[in-house]
């Protein structure tokens, strides 16, 4: 039930593959730490793959927003890939669907950073 985060590099884009639940507590803290680690080491092109995330609570949504603002405030870009229907619904309800750039195709997402 907990969340796992794996990062990989595709060119100069860092892809974070998330799976599990992003909720108050361990899940949202781990995500925050990961974004902090990436921005501190100069990775400013971040693509978050949510294909295996079915459950995000308001705390998790807050961490996505925080990640977005942290990366963009440093001149970078933070985009989302492969939303499940449930996560897409949450972003629609919270009107964040219009804030994030969202992609279904990883190659197209990677190209969009350049």
């Amino acid at each position, binding site marked *: 039930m907990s969340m796992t985060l794996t990062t990989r590099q595709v060119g100069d884009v860092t892809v974070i593959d998330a799976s599990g639940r992003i*909720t*108050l*507590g361990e899940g949202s803290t781990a995500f925050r730490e990961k974004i902090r680690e990436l921005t501190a080491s100069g990775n400013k092109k971040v693509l978050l793959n949510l294909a295996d995330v*079915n*459950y995000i*609570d*308001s*705390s998790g*949504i*807050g*961490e996505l*927003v*925080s990640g*977005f*603002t942290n990366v963009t405030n440093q001149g970078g870009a933070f985009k989302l890939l492969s939303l499940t229907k*449930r996560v897409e619904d*949450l972003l629609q*309800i*919270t*009107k*964040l669907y219009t*804030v994030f750039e969202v992609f279904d195709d990883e190659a197209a997402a990677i190209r969009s950073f350049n």
Partner: protein
Amino acid sequence: MTQDSDRIHTDIQLDSKLESVDHGEEIVLQAARAIGFDEDDIHRIGIAVRESLVNAVTHGNRFHGRKKVHLRVLVAPDSLTVEIGDEGPGFSKDSVPDPLSAENILKQSGRGLLMMQAFMDEFSVTPRPGAGSLVRMVKRRHAG
């Protein structure tokens, strides 16, 4: 409204700890599954209940060791009613900033009430007799 046919499934007190959130959510989801809600509705109910329990523990009782979260679950053939009470200072949902407004859209917090209202068919917050707030949420099972 609660009907005479509603049966009390659960009426318990939980400690003001985050562990209680998972426990309370699972209790409500067991009741929802027994009623026959589909998986999408189970997901919506779970998030709404989770948000309310987190609010009760963190904003209401502020993790106070002696304050309890009161969880009551009522079941009927086609509906689920969840009541979550805290022993905090109380709040009005009108005092919570609109998370959809331009100035709040990028704030890190403040979306819990919005999600509860979006995912449940009825939602209300009233003063809890004695102290605190009582959130009452109803989800109806739709035919088909």
